[in-house]
């Protein structure tokens, strides 16, 4: 028995074709939206790609862009097909293309769903990438004279100002790295030399942070140095300490930013996927209804449309057998010496026994 059988009269078929033509044009628009979303995400990721350790995450916007372009093409073709489907004569032109088209659309719709789900699952990879990227960016903060790293300081400062964050996980990350270049350190000064010597690796470490960590919400001028010693500063109580610098780490800030963007994109893509599914179902019904009309021979009669001709299990078995036999057809041996008893031999017609009546 067929899955989802519906009977269509001639007017209903024509109406369905018209509605599908309109829906396909709307789908072209949603394809453009999908393309735009992919482009937007790509630009957003490339803005801060210097603080990401690897660019693997870029496959999400690339997938959205290709799916968007494919949507435009497929749905444009679909609108042309649906316009012709109202008339049985014109439908015959598209008869052979219909089945591959529907299979294509089905695969493409699955890609759209995959794109939406990817947006949700990319979070852990992004977290790792940001952690490693920020750690190396902070390490190269002082290298403004090294080619290839000149602008890391500016990028990191702008990041901390714009996202209101400080350091990787929090501001104390700046205590573990040397962020003041040796070019600006007076090596003749004994205090400087002591500090460098006190460290195993010979780095000049301080309990201070760059100016970009300063919070604009603080009521006192920014305290950047001697942060481990609150007593060294006047009126530097618990509340002032909370407001003085940005408390959030930049990894968390960027993660929240991108997660927010990708969740909105994923929601929109899911809605687009549901719409595409609706269009696909409509086209399938139209295809089967038109084929049945041609089979019946009378263009004015009612016909049935369905999603699957047999039940889901039977269709699956049938398709699976086709795929299995696709592989087998090249296994048959063509060697003429081997005697293969053919069925034709048994069916050979025995020589006609003519009864001759002997007349005496």
């Amino acid at each position, binding site marked *: 028995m067929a899955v989802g059988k519906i009977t269509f009269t001639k007017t209903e078929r024509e109406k369905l074709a018209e509605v599908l033509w309109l829906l396909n044009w709307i789908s072209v628009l949603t394809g453009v939206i999908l393309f735009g979303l992919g482009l937007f995400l790509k630009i957003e990721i490339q803005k801060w790609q210097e603080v990401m350790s690897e660019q693997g995450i870029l496959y999400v916007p690339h997938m959205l862009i290709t799916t968007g372009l494919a949507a435009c093409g497929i749905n444009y073709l679909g609108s042309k097909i649906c316009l012709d489907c109202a008339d049985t004569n014109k439908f015959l032109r598209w008869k052979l293309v219909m089945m591959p088209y529907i299979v294509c659309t089905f695969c493409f719709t699955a890609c759209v769903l995959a794109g939406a789900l990817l947006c949700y699952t990319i979070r852990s990879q992004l977290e790792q990438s940001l952690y490693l990227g920020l750690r190396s960016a902070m390490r190269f903060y002082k290298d403004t004279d090294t080619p290839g790293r000149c602008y890391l*300081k500016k990028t990191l400062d*702008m990041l901390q100002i714009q996202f209101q964050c400080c350091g990787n996980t929090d501001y104390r990350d700046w205590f573990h790295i040397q962020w*003041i270049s040796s070019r*600006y350190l007076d090596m003749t*000064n004994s205090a400087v030399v002591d500090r460098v010597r006190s460290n195993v690796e010979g780095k000049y470490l301080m309990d201070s942070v*760059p100016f*970009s960590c*300063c919070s604009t919400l603080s009521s006192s*001028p920014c305290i950047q140095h001697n942060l481990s010693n609150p007593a060294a500063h006047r009126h530097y109580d618990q509340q002032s300490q909370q407001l003085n610098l940005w408390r959030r780490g930049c990894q968390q800030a960027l993660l929240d930013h991108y997660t927010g963007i990708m969740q909105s994109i994923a929601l929109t893509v899911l809605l687009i996927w549901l719409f595409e599914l609706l269009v696909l179902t409509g086209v399938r019904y139209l295809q089967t209804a038109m084929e049945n009309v041609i089979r019946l021979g009378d263009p004015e009669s009612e016909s049935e449309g369905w999603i699957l001709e047999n039940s889901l299990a039977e269709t699956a078995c049938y398709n699976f057998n086709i795929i299995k036999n696709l592989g087998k057809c090249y296994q048959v041996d063509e060697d003429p010496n081997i005697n293969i008893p053919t069925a034709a031999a048994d069916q050979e017609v025995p020589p006609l026994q003519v009864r001759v009546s002997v007349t005496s």
Partner: protein
Amino acid sequence: MVVMKMKFPFQKRVKLAQGLWLLSWCATVAGATTFSLGCLLKTELRRRSEVMDNSDIHIVPNTLMIVGLASLGINYFASKICQDALDAGRFPRWKNFLKPYFAVSCFFTVLMLLAVIMSYAMKGSLESSLKAGLRNGIRFYKDTDTPGRCFQKQNIDRLQMEFQCCGNNDFRDWFEVQWISNRYLDFSSKEVKDRIKSNVDGRYLVDGVPFSCCNPSSPRPCIQYHLTNNSAHYNYDYQTEELNIYLRGCREALVNYYMGLMNTIGVGVLSVFLLQGSVLVSLRFLQTSMEAVAGEENTEIETEGYLLEKGVKETIMEYLDPVLTFLLLKNQVEEGTTGETPATT
């Protein structure tokens, strides 16, 4: 003598009416655009209202919004009039409406041009308003515990970071103001006491700037304090150092920003002005050419259209006379009564 007389055969009149209908709808969209540009400018000015001393500059966006709304009405009526123009039966009902309509439309169209001129002319007013506002902002920077001034620090910091500027004219404005509150000064320290004593008003002045003046493009970590003291920092010369802090003053930055915005808007408004002017001119030609047809049996004759029946001066006097008589009406009545009483006695 008639200004700009032109001949209008029937086909030309029809084409004029059709073209005018389309033009008036374009002008309606343009009027809506003018209104939204006015709203945009007003929003941008209000965002930085804390560093502006007065709101005189707001007359420019207010005028744009009024003109935008007025042009919606003007163009709506223009489209209605040109729809009725070719119909000899329906056109006469607009007869009495047209004279005041043209007066009002010309007034608002000229107002549009005035708004653009004003946006250039008020640069000086904007500059002085910003100068006073920024001076107050810098003076009250430290007063984060005074009600009404709590957010000055936050506003000035955000402004300096966003517009990449420092101080009013330049960063030296911070040297003349105590921007570190007394709450955060250690009065037992000798250095603090010396600094306060050396100043006539007893203020704690430093040659330092707030962190928001720091330039992220600088290759070295930001130097905020002891800016004029070369020996306080290693490998530092304050006279040649350009990237350490922002050298531009916030007044200059803000004036440039707003003048740029108003220039862009001004170009748009000028093109809307030209469009609106062409709508009014076309409507006038259509009106005068259709008036000549009225009463004729054959409506397809060739007629003449003109802009002004009399010369420019006489037309202006004709329009101003009712206004003047209205204003002088009271005086005339008083003169009449005083003149009469001596005669009766």
